[in-house]
């Protein structure tokens, strides 16, 4: 069993893989949340992860910047293996941006300070330089006019765009999105998706857990379907939506696309 899975992993592993998961397992106590995950992501690839709730998709991308620990297998990000080595974890996190479902902006700092905090304290940039970079990204997500407001004064969609800009200020090589539009009012979903589509066009490596199938169709290079802790199916969006191979995928798609 172990040999076949690692062989499968070898097959997927391209030379330009920026994320490699090989035989990853994770348990929450007795609950087996990730089962033998093998995944390889090329530089510049845009991947959408979908699946029913509790299928382990958020846990998977949270393992990639070690917000969660995996108990078995290997995760290698940008050439660095994630282990208990704190220095390595911090090195990886610098290069991996993360956008959360509930934004997690720092409420005691202004929008601009939210964006400059990490560049100043982690990258040790001069304040003026960090602020210039921050304003550039805030302009890109079209929220530069709110730079001196506090997060509590912004709408959900605006907060999520600030959160994206905050991650981009660290010039990450990879961006992880953990259901970025799930906590938003319907009319604000589009403004966030537009920013993400714009980001995809710049060639950013993106891993996105989302239920926005329109986004998956238009942007993703590959769609990964997870159920009960396993990767059930992965394919191009065209194949995935028109010609799903497994019964579980078909059931899931019929449930979310029925209306």
């Amino acid at each position, binding site marked *: 069993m172990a040999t076949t899975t690692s062989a499968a992993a070898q097959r997927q592993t391209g030379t330009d893989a920026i994320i490699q998961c090989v035989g990853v397992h994770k348990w929450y106590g007795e609950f087996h949340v990730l089962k033998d995950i093998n995944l390889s992501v090329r530089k510049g690839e845009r991947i959408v992860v979908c699946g029913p709730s509790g299928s382990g998709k958020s846990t998977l991308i949270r393992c990639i*910047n070690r*917000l969660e620990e995996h108990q078995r297998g290997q995760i290698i990000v940008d050439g660095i293996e994630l282990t208990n080595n704190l220095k390595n974890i*911090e090195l990886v*996190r*610098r290069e*991996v*941006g*993360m956008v*959360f479902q*509930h934004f*997690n*902006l*720092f*409420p*005691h700092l202004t929008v601009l300070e939210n964006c400059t*905090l*990490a560049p*100043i*304290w*982690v*990258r*040790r*940039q*001069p*304040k*003026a*330089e*960090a602020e210039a970079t921050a304003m550039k990204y805030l302009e890109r997500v079209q929220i530069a006019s709110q730079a001196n407001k*506090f997060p*509590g*004064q912004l709408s959900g969609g605006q907060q999520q765009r600030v*959160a994206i800009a*905050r*991650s981009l200020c*660290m010039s990450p090589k990879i961006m992880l999105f953990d259901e970025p539009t799930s906590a938003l009012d319907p009319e604000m979903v589009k403004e966030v998706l537009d920013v993400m589509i714009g980001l995809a066009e710049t060639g950013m490596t993106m891993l996105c857990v989302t239920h926005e199938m329109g986004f998956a169709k238009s942007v993703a290079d590959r769609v990964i379907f997870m159920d009960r802790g396993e990767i059930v199916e992965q394919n191009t969006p065209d194949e995935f939506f028109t010609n799903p191979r497994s019964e579980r995928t078909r059931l899931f798609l019929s449930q979310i696309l029925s209306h």
Partner: protein
Amino acid sequence: MTSESGGAGRGAHSGFTLSINDPTVRAVVFQVLIIGAVVLLGWWLVHNTLDNLARRSIATGFGFLEREASFGIGESMIDYHPRDSYGRAFLVGVLNTLKVSVIGIIVATVIGTLVGIARLSSNWLLAKLASLYVEVVRNVPPLLQLFVWYAVITESMPSVREAFNPLPGVFLSQRGIKIPVPESDPVWNWMIVALLVGVAAAIAMTRWARARQARTGQPFPVGLASLGLIFGMPLLTWLVGGAPTAMDVPRVQGFNFVGGATMSPEFFAILFGLSIYTAGFIAEVVRSGIVAVNWGQTEAARSLGLSSGNTLRLVVLPQALRVIVPPLTSQYLNLTKNSSLALAIGYPDLVSIANTTINQTGQSIEGVAMIMGTYLTISLGISLFMNWYNKRIALVER
């Protein structure tokens, strides 16, 4: 009166009717009734008191403060002699209360913060020990704890003749803790000046470091450098001043010590009793403040690459403080007010001295009024400061 404006708006809309079902009318009626009751009660109390005082022919007023106190006070921060006035005796009590409160607040905050953070530690033993501390200290009445501390010192410590001598010049006995103090020398005064200069230099350096980081991005070890300046300056002054080492060492003479400085068993018991008691509550306040900050804040900070120390300092603590400060204020006020328990172990605090004064002069109303007025002043002072600080760190919402 706040409901009145809303009610008036509605009343104007529907036309004015004098009904008990109208919220405006209700508000006015209830307020008039309550104010009436309070005034009546107040009048009855004052009238009754004046009547009783007149019947027993007790003179009222604060004239007694000028009279000779003619009782001794165990310890005092200012010169005091039984021949001094009651007013001066009262001042001694106020200063003693302030001494216990101020030092107690500092000690309780330090212990409480450490224990509160320890309770959240992932180290099982540390977390359990901190929990044990909090539960024991919170669930035993403070008066009993003071008795325990007092008994520990007076009962388990040796007599003066057999005083425990852990370090040269330091004596532990039933009479408290005796420590050597330096003999007076102008260099010591200069060292105090140097300490102040060091503090000022540390503040200036912090500003410089902040500006430099903004300019170049390079952080500066502000904490270590500040410590160096604050302790280094006096040390340098001491060396330059010829490094005087003459000490006033306590020694036994007859039945007691002479020389050195003393921490009395009473002061030790009240200070540590109150600090350790209040620290148990402060630990819970600190813990709840840190827990109240959403875990997502830590995750966001860590996923940006911030170290755990910087995450705590730049993200978690600034938000936790806003939850911590209001209940912390209550604990500071509690500690200050609980210092009146000093009466039970014979530490001459404000209440203890006022009590003696009342017993000797019979001026109980004035005495109690002065105690209340003093505690009110101290408490309002603490409240004002903490409210100002709370407002400074409050979050901006929409």
